[in-house]
Structures are given as C-alpha cells and as structure tokens.
C-alpha cells in the first residue's frame, strides 16, 4: 500500500514537472507555427495532401476541403492532431493543403 502511494506521488510530481518545464516550449512552438502559417509554400501543400490522405483516411472518409472555412480547419485539424496523434509539422502541412483547396 505504501509503495502504491509512493508511486502515485511520483506520477503526480512527474506530471506537474513535465507541465511546468514544457510550458515555454508550447509558447515558442506557437510562434513558430504562426510564422509558418503566414508563409505557405507549394511544397508544404503537397506534403499536406499526402499527410491528409495517409492519416485522415485511416479512420474515416476524407472530407471535402470546401466543407469548412480556413478558421474552422485550423480548429478541426488541431482537434485531430490530438485524436490521431499527428506531429505538429504534419498538422501544419495538412492545414496548408486544406486552406489552399477550399
């Protein structure tokens, strides 16, 4: 029982430390993403199309890019980044493709 409690304390402490230590990374990452979003390039769109097909089509049919606005795709892809365990760069590529295609 004591070992279990120690484990719990360890897990909780690890979570808190991970959150605090990584907070600046999250903020820095957001700036990077913003800069990238403002400069879409054709190759990013091509990479996005491939990532869109490979990842989104794994579970469900591919939605038409025209279904949502740019801003809605921003939110939808962020949601799917978590649900489908996408890498941030993949998510940005997919956004670039969807925005270029809607």
């Amino acid at each position: 029982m004591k070992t279990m409690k120690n484990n719990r304390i360890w897990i909780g402490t690890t979570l808190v430390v991970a959150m605090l230590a990584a907070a600046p990374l999250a903020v820095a990452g957001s700036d990077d993403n913003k800069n990238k979003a403002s400069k879409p390039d054709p190759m990013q769109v091509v990479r996005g199309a491939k990532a869109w097909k490979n990842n989104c089509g794994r579970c469900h049919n591919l939605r038409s890019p025209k279904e949502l606005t740019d801003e809605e795709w921003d939110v939808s892809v962020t949601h799917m980044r978590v649900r489908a365990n996408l890498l941030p760069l993949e998510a940005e590529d997919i956004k670039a493709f969807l925005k270029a295609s809607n």
Partner: protein
Amino acid sequence: MRKTLFLSSAIAIVLLSAIPAGAQTSTSTEEGLSSANQALLARIEKLEAELVALRASVQQSAQTASAAKATAQSAVKTVSTVQKLAKVGAAGAYSGAPSDAKWHLAGYADVGFVGGDMPGPDSFVTGKFNPGFHFQYKDLLIFESELEFSTTSDGETTTELEYSQFDIPINDYVTLVAGKYLSPIGQFQERLHPSWINRIQGAPAGFGHDGVQPTSDTGVQLRGTVPVGNTRFTYAVALGNGPQTTFEGGVKLEGVSKDNNSNKSLGGRIGFFALPYLELGGSYLTGKVSGYAPPVGHEETPVTLAADVPVGSSAQDQARYTLWGMDAAYTKGALAARFEYLNSHRGAFFSPTADDPAGVFLPRLGMKAWYGQVSYRMSNVGSSDFIHNLEPVVRYGQFRITGHDVLREENAQDRFNLGLNYWLAPTIVTKAGLEWRDFRVAGVPSETLYQFQIAYGF
C-alpha cells in the same frame, strides 16, 4: 448664362437709348412716326419680357448651383465619415489573419430502423445526436467536448457528456489531456464508434456499453507521436479515476466525476506503423475496484448477485482489475481491414452493502471480446457512380464472460454482421445490414436482426 444676360441687357440699353433719336427723325410724317414707334415699343416690351425671363432663369440656376454645392459638400462629409468608420471596423474585423480564439462545431447524428426476431416489436429508432464543440486559443490549447442526446423507449430525452477535455500541446511529441476523455484503449472507442465512421449500425459485441471495452475515464493523459526513421510510434498514457463496480456486480468502465476509492487506474496504448497503411497496437489498463457505492439518495444493494464464498477464500474488500488488448488496422485505398482483441479480469472480493456491512462475495469476473471487420469501397469497380458509392462490409466477433451468470446470459454471444453501405457524400452514409446473434447460454434464443441507418458526420 451670364454672358447671355449681358448681351441681352446691352441690346436693350442700346435700343432704349436710340428711342429719342428715332422720335426726332420721324417727325416728318405723323402717321409714319406713330407706326414706327409702336413697332419699336412692341419690340422693347418683348425684349423686356425676355429680360425678365432671363433674370428668373439666372436666379433659378444660381439656386440650383447652390443646392448642388451643398449636396456635394454633404457627400464629401459622408464619404469622409464612412472612410473613418471603415478604418475602425477593419481594425476589429477578420481580415485574413488568424484570430486568437477560434471554434468549430462538429459531431454526428443518425436515425434508423431495427426489425427481426429480437424481443419487442420492429421499430424506428431515433438514433443519436452528438454535437461536438472545439474551442481553440492560439496554439496554446484546445478545449473539446461532445454531448450525446438520445430518446428512450418511453419518449424521454437523455443527455450524456461523452467527453470534455483540455488538450495542451507540451512540445512536438507530447500533449497533455485533462478532463473526461474517450478511452485510449484499443481503436474502436476513440476513433471508430461515431456512426458516420462505424461501418456497421452498432458496436461489435463487447465493445459497447456493458462490454469489456472501456468507454471513457476522467483524469489526465500524456499522448503523442515519436518518429523513428521512416515510421513512428504513437502512445497514450492515462491516469484516471478508473473502473468501478456496478449495481449488478459487473465493472463500470465510464468516466465518473468522483472516484470511489483512493486507487487510480493506469493504462494506455502504444501504436506502431509497420507500414504506412498498417497500424499495430497494444493496450493495457490496471486499477483496483471496490464495492458498489449507491448514489446519494438510493439504497440499492447488489445482494442478489452474491455468490457462495469459496472455502479458504482470502478475498479482500477491493480487487484488482486488469485489461490488456491488441489491435491491427490495414487501410489501403478502398480496402479497410480491422481486428481488435480485449481481455479483462477482476479479482474476487467482498462488496459491502447496507444489509451486509461485511460484504457480499463477488467472484472473479473475466471478460474477453474480439472482432474482425473488412469493408471495401467499390470506387474502382465499373464506371457507374452508383456502384462507386457502394461499400459492402462484413464483421464477425465474439464476447465471452465468466464469473457473472446474469451478464453472461445477456451478453455472451457470437455476432455476425453483413452489410451494404451507400455513401451519399463523404460524410453521409446509408447502411443496410443483417445481424445474427448467437447467445452462448443454453436456452437463450438466437436473434436475427435487419437494420437500416442513415448517419451524417458534420
């Protein structure tokens, strides 16, 4: 206009000044003079009339010009005001740049019909309406939640919170999830259960409610992806309130707002892409469950589920629950093949009740379920659009239960599904299917159902 007035006036003056001279020269003949004067006077009167008309015209023109000038000045002022307002509006309106806070409404809905030789009459079913809300603040976090509205057989509307979670990206490889989340165990619950994604009308046996598949939990998750060469690992590690004991003595695997024991569950899933279109996964969950805790204001006790205590039993007032599973998904082009297996055990323990504080004995409970499913979208068959939208699907699965006779009688079965889907759009599907349920308890009749459903993911 002024020039015309000037010329007319000059002519009139010249004519008027010439009148005396004309009168002197015309004294030679009285009659001729009179005639000339009369003609001249008539002409003068005519010119005077024209002069008056010209003056009136000039005045009117001046008034018109003045009014036009005022109108022009007013227009200039209005344009200036509009320009100022436009600048102010543009500063606060969407101008193509991303907003800090964005949101998106998603979700799905379905309706259907179920008939066959199951207990009860054939019936239209209202299905479900599951709106999902996603709110994002910059790239800092996203809050997402999904509700489920459905109608009971007696007409009441039920509302459930499917999930409600904050997702906070920590870095490229780690995202913190906090709240009530869909269980990351296996693939079906987290990714495939929405009706516009699920190729069959219902869940595989054992993967729905009262099954071995956990539906949700409340706690925290760390999840993400780790690239390794040309492939990747995905992971989700969850620390939650964990499973609880149900009124019937089974295991409740849904997220609750308050834990009923001090033991948290630890679980998750690791996935691996052996090929870009082949995902393999393994899941694990462990935690302790304690006795059934009746909701406040209720006095139900699971006394009817008590079993005889085995001789020499050393059962405690808590038991460990352990689940493990594996899954595989091959999704290439029009073909999708899936397989999942889950196996869980809960140890024997005494569940305290109001009537028996020492606890009723709940024996060891074992549950396992698996299914395999293959679907093929006929998008490359023939040249007919109708055929291209067809998708045959077949699924077979088993659900086995040991240690709980009531649950076993109600749920343990082999289940075979055969269906044909027609896609009206990428997110709208109509499904027609047959389902055979072969129950594993002697005396429980098998069932054959025919099912229709239309589902829309939005």
